[in-house]
């Protein structure tokens, strides 16, 4: 890279790739995350989310391409990268045989938090995790939500400008997940850049932007609203009609229809932009003997969008 990343960009990947033997885990990924942004990292299991995050953290060297984190190259300046990031790995990774306070003090020492600020930062982390007064509890005895918040507390003791959270809320109950996301937004409000992977679609809604990755490739990126409106490649129509089977067969072959699927007792049809109008649709179905009761435009959920995008990727690309 010829010049350092501009200050407004906290994380940037350019054609970032990782191969394990013949297996391509991350395939020429381009991604840039602005300062203070909460970027959601969504994708099926094995899509390459963890591998990408590990490359950003300097834990895995890229096979190809580059990544800059907080202005440092992850391959050649991994030590500086580590000074400027906080990381929560997918597996819970604090010391279960140490107490809450001992874990915090250990990471405080490892990150060389200035001694005079230590007490204040430990208190902040304890408060954030909701563990005041439980300093002496062995971490192994804590419930999932507390463990995760404590892990976050340990990861931000040194006030890193960039945070990488790899599925931080997996296996955590909904209430605790909600609290965790409140913390993420507090940190973002303080200017911390956060890349957080998740497979909970409701959590994706909390992100400023979402990057959808599948088979190591960036499939779509944008705000939740943007992805909902243009992620499907057309408007989503909900049809009440009978018989459903005939209607499905007709619509899947029809010009201007991107996708059609049965959705409960209704039919969901993605009409390509400038393609099929509601009237044309009604005419087409009547010609095939289908009774159309109603048609309405619905807002797709993010889940609709992701399922559609991942499916499309698998149709258009030959299996490796």
């Amino acid at each position: 890279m010829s010049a350092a990343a501009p200050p407004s960009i906290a994380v940037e990947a350019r054609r970032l790739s990782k191969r394990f033997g013949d297996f391509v885990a991350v395939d020429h990924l381009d991604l840039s995350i602005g300062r203070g942004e909460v970027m959601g990292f969504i994708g099926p299991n094995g899509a390459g989310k963890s591998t990408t995050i590990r490359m950003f953290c300097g834990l895995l060297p890229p096979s190809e391409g580059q990544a800059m984190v907080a202005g440092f190259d992850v391959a050649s300046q991994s030590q500086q990268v580590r000074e400027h990031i906080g990381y929560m790995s997918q597996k819970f990774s604090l010391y279960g045989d140490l107490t809450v306070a001992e874990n915090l003090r250990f990471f405080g020492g490892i990150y060389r938090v200035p001694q005079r600020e230590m007490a204040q930062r430990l208190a902040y982390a304890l408060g954030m995790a909701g563990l005041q007064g439980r300093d002496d509890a062995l971490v192994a005895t804590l419930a999932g939500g507390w463990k995760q918040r404590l892990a976050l507390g340990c990861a931000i003791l040194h006030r890193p400008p960039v945070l990488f959270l790899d599925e931080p809320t997996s296996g955590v109950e909904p209430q605790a997940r909600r609290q965790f996301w409140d913390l993420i937004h507090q940190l973002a409000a303080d200017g911390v850049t956060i890349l957080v992977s998740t497979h909970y679609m409701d959590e994706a809604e909390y992100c400023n932007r979402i990057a959808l990755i599948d088979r190591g490739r960036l499939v779509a990126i944008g705000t939740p609203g943007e992805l909902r409106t243009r992620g499907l490649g057309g408007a989503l129509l909900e049809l009440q009609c009978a018989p459903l089977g005939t209607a499905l067969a007709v619509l899947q072959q029809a010009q201007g229809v991107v996708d059609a699927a049965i959705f409960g007792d209704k039919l969901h049809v993605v009409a390509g932009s400038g393609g099929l109008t509601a009237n044309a649709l009604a005419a087409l179905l009547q010609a095939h003997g289908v009774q159309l009761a109603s048609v309405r435009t619905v807002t797709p959920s993010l889940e609709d969008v992701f399922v559609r995008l991942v499916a499309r990727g698998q149709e258009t690309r030959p299996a490796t």
Partner: protein
Amino acid sequence: MKLRRLLAMAYKETLQIWRDPRSLAIALIMPLMQMGLLGYGVSLDIKQVPLCIYDQENSQLSRAIVSRFDAGGWFATTGVLHSQAGVRAAMDAGTCIGAVVIPVDFSRQLASTGTASIQAVFDATDVNTTNIAQGYLQGVVAQINAQIQAQWQAAHGVSASQLGQVDLQPSTWFNQTLDSRNFIIPGVVAVILALVGAQLTSLTVSREWERGTMEQLISTPVTALEVMLGKLLPYFVVGMVDAAVCLALAVYWFDVPFRGSVLTLFAATALFSLVILGIGYLISVRIRSQLAASQVALYVTLLPTTLLSGYTFPIDQMPKPIQALTLVVYPRYYVTILRGIFLKGSSLVDLWQPLLGLVIFAVVIVWLAARAFHKRLD
């Protein structure tokens, strides 16, 4: 390298040792157990060898000879036999491991020719014991000969000086009582250090991989060298304390003579600890399963220490190729130094060769260990 991070590592590791019953047991109880077992249990001295007697003659002389075998505590007569077949039977039954047969014409032969033979039969399944028992037997026979000679001389009015007899007066140095305990116990310290040091450290890195804490740790700015030193420091202290306890037990409990300098002993022990901890750490870095790491640690530390260090089996009795092999068996240097300091009072200068051996090993192993760990996942 930052001291702050190193100390944070060392403190964390200390807490983990303290809270892990297995580590604590290895660190605190194992040395005492080993010291007791090996101090009391292992002895290369053989006393009261069970012996059977088949006295075919049963004369006054033969009975006098038989009574000599019982004297001195080397042998214990466990059976009196009455046939040659009885010898085999007694050995099969395990009544004795040696039998002495005095022929029926023993006294007559001695009187007419001046020499007579007695037969000794040994069960040589345990070669070591047999060799030692044979030695004892020769000693007893030599005494008998001397007695017969003295009687003859007295009867013929000749004094020993007229015959010009050669008399051997053996004198043993450094372990005057020829007590094998004095020879074994200093070596026990090496065994304990090898066992404790490598067993504890072999788990220190693999444990973090297995529990998933390693991924978090290597995402921090801590360097590989800080991880190594921080992890080894507490184990080094444990090793030195264990060694001190064992050495004190050797001197004050088992009464092994201590003739050398404590400082030399300390230096050699520190070097040996470094080698052992470095090996344990190398294993731990290379092998990510705790169980496998602990097994491998046993093979590369305890086995050479017990078998090839000269701790139990004298190196100069080994076949030449094995003797050459012991040069790369690091415990041999430490065992040599321990015995030198304990029994001979050897100084730094006397011990420069084994000390140099240890220094070379310590440098190489620690250098390899420092390079082994990478803060990467692949």
